[in-house]
């Protein structure tokens, strides 16, 4: 009886840890949100890049984008808010605020700002897309050798 209770408590603790791990995974997963101001096409219509637009994700500070410009925000977690402020031809300022969710296992996503501005009420798949970094940009120019230097003890700082 005592042994079974211990076993149950242990299994419960392990289950708790697994749940905690999953929660931490979700809470701590970092993503890069690219914001892009490039001319793009949606549903057949060409959308021009905006002359000047300010974009901010969450409260990370707004970034200005000129046409063909791209910038990024590093975020943690899945649900985020994007705020876009732009001035149209009639010199009126418009602000669009939208929330979006980043897919869990996707490292990088891209918001195409012209699409968001053109269809501000649409679902996020219209203006938010997945992004894969080109592999040549990712491999660092580091030395190939793995130095398993036993005596690195003496070269490093403790």
């Amino acid at each position, binding site marked *: 009886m005592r042994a079974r209770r211990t076993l149950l408590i242990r299994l419960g603790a392990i289950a708790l*840890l697994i749940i*905690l*791990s999953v929660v*931490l*995974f979700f*809470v*701590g*997963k*970092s*993503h890069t949100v690219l914001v892009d101001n490039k001319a793009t096409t949606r549903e057949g219509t060409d959308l021009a890049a905006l002359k000047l637009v300010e974009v901010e994700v969450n409260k990370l500070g707004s970034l200005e984008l000129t046409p063909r410009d791209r910038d990024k925000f590093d975020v*943690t977690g899945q649900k985020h808010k994007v705020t876009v402020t732009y001035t149209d031809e009639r010199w009126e300022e418009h602000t669009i605020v939208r929330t979006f969710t980043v897919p869990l296992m996707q*490292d990088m996503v891209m918001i195409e700002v012209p699409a968001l501005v053109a269809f501000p009420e649409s679902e996020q798949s219209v203006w938010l897309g997945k992004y894969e970094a080109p*592999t040549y940009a*990712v*491999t*660092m120019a*580091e*030395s*190939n*050798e*793995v*130095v*398993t*230097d*036993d005596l*690195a*003890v*003496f070269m*490093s700082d*403790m």
Partner: protein
Amino acid sequence: MTANTSKSKKLVRFLANNTVPILFLFICAFGIPLSGYSASYLISEIIVRLVRNSFLIVSLLIPILAGMGLNFGMTLGAMAGQIGLIFITDWGIVGLPGMILAMIISTPISMALGWLCGKILNMAKGREMVTSYIIGFFMNGIYQLVVLYGMGAVIPIRSKSLVLPRGYGIRNTVNLIGVRKALDDLLLIRIFGIPIPVGTFAVIALLCLFVLWFKKTKLGQDMRAVGQDMEVARAAGIRVEHTRIISIVISTVFAGYGMIIYMQNIGTLNTYNSHMQIGMFSVAALLVGGATVAKANIRNVFLGVVLFHLMFIVSPMAGKNLIGQAQLGEYFRVFVSYGVITMSLVLYEVRKKREQAVAGETLAAAQEVGA
């Protein structure tokens, strides 16, 4: 008359028991002015070292309690912690959640490695320290097998930037920018311009409280009994082998957490070398704090970190100012690090022999009287 002699006897005994820390005090007293470093620089550096290393060194206390000597096998815990860090870096989990997740991942690995280590040490009773030392090297080979050959090939790694150009195996250095200072910055306050990571100190304090509480529990008392005399403990009904293994498992798990705390402070993972150095430096620091192979408490940990790292920091500059070559100071601090371990080991053995001789003589005298 008697008051004076007992006082001088007490002084002699105090000096004899604390030879190593006092020696280090001299070295520091000599080296600090020679190095020319300012007090505020030294204080901030020491705070950093305390933050980095204390957790790791506290993990050494429990095996000493159980009579296993200096647990050079803490390297195994360090390896488990590193593997946890590699995974969270690969998955892109950052900040405090990342750090905690790394700790959770390292725990089962540490437990398995610690259990294995404990089992092997039980087969080598009387030679625990050498054996744990060699286990560290042996496991390094297995670690390399996993990390240098398995990861990327058999164990899936998502991010290409972690992997060597040849397609498998983790790179020499892994940038831990995600979890860098994750715990340190949690509650960072500044006193006189010196940053003090209260968060990390709180965690270290928690561990110290745990160790103090643990010593009072039944398991802790069992370990102390096993540490003092295995056969007496066995006669009292304690499962000696099991208790010894538990002490190593606990130590290894904490060493894993300690390594993660160490790494989040440094911010870069030196994949193949960090864990090998850490064992030696942690042991040396503990011994400098006045601990011996058979007795160590929390006081030794903090005193040891301060003294040992002071010596470590001032040596190169002191060497440069004294003889003109900083390299000399660097070799000097390496020599002192190893020398202090040697001296502590020798003093321990000599003292043990003397105590056994005294015990033997009193026993013989008692028998004579009886006869």
